[in-house]
């Protein structure tokens, strides 16, 4: 069964490379996000409310 499933699995290296890229990017993203300060997030989340004078 397993053999059969992998029978047509031709470009293994490509899939592997994809997965490695995928997971490393992901981990880096998580580390980055969690190393950022709370004030930064607060400032960003208020952007939609930063109104200009006369803004409707």
């Amino acid at each position, binding site marked *: 069964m397993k053999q*059969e*499933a*992998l029978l*047509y*699995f*031709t*470009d293994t290296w*490509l*899939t592997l*490379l*994809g997965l490695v*890229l*995928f997971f490393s*990017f*992901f981990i880096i*993203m*998580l580390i*980055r*996000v*969690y*190393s*950022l300060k709370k004030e*930064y*997030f*607060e*400032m*960003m*989340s*208020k*952007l*939609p*409310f*930063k109104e*200009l*004078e*006369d*803004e*409707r």
Partner: protein
Amino acid sequence: MNQNYEYFSYDDDIVKKFLLATMIWAGAAFLFGLLAALQLAYWPLNLNSEYLTFGRLRPLHTNAAIFAFAGNAIFAGIYYSTQRLLKARLFSDLLGRIHFWGWQLIIVAAAITLPLGYSQSKEYAELEWPIDIAITLVWVVFAINFFGTIKKRREKHMYVAIWFYIATIITVAVLHIVNSIELPVTFLKSYPVYAGIQDALVQWWYGHNAVAFFLTTPFLGLMYYFMPKIADRPVYSYRLSIIHFWSLVFIYIWAGPHHLLYTALPDWAQTLGMIFSLMLWAPSWGGMINGLLTLRGAWHLLRTDPLVKFMVAAITFYGMATFEGPLLSIKSVSAVGHYTDWIIGHVHSGALGWNGFLSFAMIYYLVPKLWSTKLYSLKLATTHFWLGLVGILLYYISMVSAGITQGLMWHAVNENGKLVYPDFVETVTRIVPLYWVRALGGVLYLAGFILMAYNIWKTLKTAPKDQKEPTYAALKPNFESSSGETTHKKLEGMGLVFSVLSFIAIAVGSIVEIIPTLSLHKYVEPARVTDPYSALELAGRDIYIREGCYTCHSQMIRKLSAEVLRYGPASTIEESMWDRPFQWGSKRTGPDLARSGGKYPNLWHYRHMMDPRSTTPGSIMPNYPWLYTKKTDYLVLRKKLSVMQSLGVPYTDEQLAQADLDAQKQAMSIVEDLKQNGVEDPKLEEKEIVALIAYLQAMGKKERAE
């Protein structure tokens, strides 16, 4: 005047234009949908008309809903929120106008060509090549206008909504271009460069990600802007929104193959699609929770404010649909659910609930603001909400019940190993009552929308006559980065770098999935190679495509025992290796046709296509009387074969030169057979029905004679 200030205004006129277009096309999309729903409940509503028959109406409905209604809503919301988030007027007023009128022109072209039968038959990519080119051009105009605005922005930081818009613009461009590579045959007919399994994979990579990047990411951007604005408090967790964003753009692109489980697609690609679909659960629910909890401390608004009602329901439907999607990607669930109306229920909880309700909330929010007035009636809006909600629930519940009924009946096998319901039509008549319930759901949803149209119209009438764009003052931009900033902050300040990163995110999954399948030769077994269609069969196939038979019939027998019992051996890669476009289909309102060749005599098809009830009482398939009067275009066949040959189909030069003669000869032999069985119809060999019969009789019969 203060030297450090700049004075500017927003281009709100373009937002207004897109909003009104959204309203108009929404009405059209809902009406087409309702008619199509009624046609399945009551077949005479196909009206024996070639222009309104279900197979042509359904693509019109889906295109109107996705590109006309949702498309215009996205553009309105993006143009409004981007200007405000970036504190800048749109890059170019002119590009905005070209974008608007170009897009409406494309919609009109679709509304004309689809009923006329000009279709590539690839779901949500039906439009023919000249329109494909127009879409590309207009999208580029949109991109220039958007990125130009980013470039001239006065706010250094880019709010997360902008990220979602960037990912949308880049990915939709990639999807559309890759899936639309085709060779023209005539002005409104083309063949895709991909064939069979390649075409299937590219199409569902496209189809799935059209849902992801046309109906999800832009709407999430809108959610992250409008939900806080409507609730008047910042998003629950900005940190979560960043994780939401990156996880979605990364994972979504891999999930396409879940549309092809148990098909001839190699198992590894199916498994990959399934795993990544399951992974989507996490970010989708993170996003939903983030949206809903934005209301923290203000839940009372849910009782009093119809806009909040719409928003909260929309986000809840987003959560439901993104829960159900991965569920349906689990192979054992897909075995029962795929090809059934469950999928139709699933997409409508997304389209009507998530996209529809979010757009409605946005329109109710924006119209009074943009036209400097107040909404005419909050009460009407509340009634709209309840009508819409009950409509969606009726729709969803009836279709999921219908789907599970179909799935169970198709797979029911008794103790002798025989099908319990061998007559397919039994499984059709059983669910017709549910089609009526679904149509009722549609009526309610449409009724709610009509209330909205009235409400908006009344609101516009109270608007002051002279509408001025107010001028704003903002500090001159100064982006010199101060030394203390982390790289991330610099990064999200840089539009270009950010766009490149998003592109890489979607490119990785795309390349990994598509490249191996493009090397088709690796999968084809020489012993099982099939012959290409004869010229007449190809003519018949193009009629099949024109009539949208794929909207009700699949041509892909899955590797499931009940399916093999019903239809014959599972379909192979080789059987569709010359199919441009592939016709595997996605829904079985009628039975699979992959092995219908030789199942019935020519006479049966002749009578069935004229009136399906004459051979199969209780059938809901439309009549096709026009196929008995329209003439087959024999002359174009040489051109068609030659385009196919240049795409690698092994037609000989002799076959090209004689295409029309060969076809006429084959037509004569079918006509002889029909005549012997009592059909009297002068000049029958010229008629399209004969070509179609030739194709139906060739299905599953093209294995190469040794």
